[in-house]
């Protein structure tokens, strides 16, 4: 795409501008994947989790949890590009998604309580 991007490698500092390396493109791709897909997974998991734990009626739990999910997704997306390494950008949010969804899935009756 462009030739002028400062390589946002693991520690983005101002470097002289070499042409884009495949390594750089790969890292951007991994972070973008983390932001988009893993981010959605965390948002999904957090919605399910909040639908479980919020001290509200069923209808209100669903609405509140769902309305908040966009900020969760944004948060993970920002983290994906701020994390020290692209690998960390992937595994840390993934753990969150698994943990939150795991808890939600373990108590289906609680999730469905009126």
């Amino acid at each position, binding site marked *: 795409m*462009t030739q002028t991007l*400062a390589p946002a490698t693991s520690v983005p500092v*101002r470097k002289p501008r070499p042409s884009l390396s495949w390594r750089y493109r790969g890292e951007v791709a991994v972070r973008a994947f983390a932001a988009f897909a893993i981010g959605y997974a965390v948002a999904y998991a957090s919605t399910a989790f909040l639908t479980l734990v919020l001290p509200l009626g069923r*209808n*209100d739990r*669903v609405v509140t949890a*769902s309305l908040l*999910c966009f900020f969760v997704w944004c948060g993970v997306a920002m983290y994906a590009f701020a994390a020290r390494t692209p690998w960390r950008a992937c595994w840390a949010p993934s753990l969150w998604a698994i943990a939150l969804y795991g808890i939600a899935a373990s108590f289906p009756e609680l999730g469905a309580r009126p």
Partner: protein
Amino acid sequence: MKNTFSQAMAWLHTWAGLVIGWLLFVIFVGGTIACFDKELTHWMQPALHGKTPVANIDLSRTIEGLQRIAKPHPHAYYVTLPSERSPALQSAVYYDAGPHDAINIDTSTGQAIPETAGGEFFFTLHYNLHSETWGMYIVGIAGMFMLIAILTGIVIHKRIFKDFFTFRPASGGQRAWLDGHNLTGVLGLPFHLMIAYTGVAIFVANYMPAGLLAAYDGDVEKFYVEASDSYERPETHQPLKSIYPIDKLIADARERLGQPISWVSVHHPDDTSATISFGGDHSRAVAWNFDQVFYDANDGKLLHESGAFKSGYKTYTFLGGLHMAQWGGSALRWLYFVLGLAGCVMIASGMQVWVAKRAKKVAEAGAWSGYGLVQALNLGVVGGMPLASAAMLIANRLIPATMAERASWEIGVFCAVWILASLYAAIPAVRSRGWGHFFAINAVACGLIPLVNLATSPQSHVFATIARGDWALAGVDLTALALCAGFAWFAQHSFAKARQPASVRTGRGRAARGDAVVDDTALADH
């Protein structure tokens, strides 16, 4: 870490903005125009202009009209009564799948009026790019990117208060564009943040099913019945012989709802489970108005009055109402319109900063490189879409009323003009200096709207509408004239700048002399 984080967020701000910039521009222009979608629809129905609306409407006859055109097994009939903003009587048949069938009626004659894409075209373009489900998801993704661009923008703009009022148009070139971007971005921040968030929040049920699955096992109907205290009953699969006369129920409905009736609907109209419901409009409060009263379509018996909504759902309807601006009179619609224009400027100037920064590279790269494409796209989208919109309004006045598929022809003109404009923008000589051309063409197109109106529609042109005090109609022509003036000013400015020698134009000299310091994080090489 702080420095690194800032730079990462600055990078993300730039690229989140760039990736969806043009798409977002289209969505924003569509939404801004859609502030006045009903007014625009009315403007595009010259058959109704200058007529006095009729007070008593025969709703049963309207329903019969729908029954005549309905395809088998319709989902619901909807009739929207004439209102101040929409004098036509709108009726439609909705189906479980596929587009609806609509008949719009002139109440003074009882006849259908020539169809038009209307202001509704821009509204639909705005929320699903006229691509049903696919489009809704693409728009949602664009909205998420916008949210990220906003949140990262907040994080990186450390000098947010110090630079609050900074605008240096005289600096020329990149600095002026960046100032414009920052100005419209920062000063309009509450609006942009609200619009982006409420925009995605409106479709939350489509974007995030997790809560519904966890708590309701996916039963959408149950959710809405609980949330908005509405009423549903299963189909009986017995054919309904005739729908109870709706006109007999209106007075009772009005009394129970405590507000004027704005719409009527018949759900499952060919089944004995059919219900007739009435509701008011969204103009009385910020939150969407989903209060309804339900009657049995067999015998007119009252079935249910919707009561209190769940508080979470009330919040949701408030967020939706914040976005859609159907309340607060024309004052609020004008405020949103101007703020929307500011948003369009923010997006366009952001794209332009990036393109201008690489202008040198673009010049070196020549005709067929990626940079050239970017420049052409930038010009084609930002310059072409207003042009296509103006062309559609002009086409509305020129396409004969008796033409079949009139609305499709209007939309066809929109698309054709936009494509042609984009092709023009792709010409190498045009794409690097083409802003002046596009501003000028847009000025001409906007100026043509009231002129074509004057030439073709005696009841609709600006002199006639002002004379009888019809300011909603006159407003369209007057806004077109104002936009014409605005585009003309930009065109003149562009041509004047093009005549200046290069060093003065880019303003590098002045910037180097050090005008007020600016947070260069955003200007950093990305």
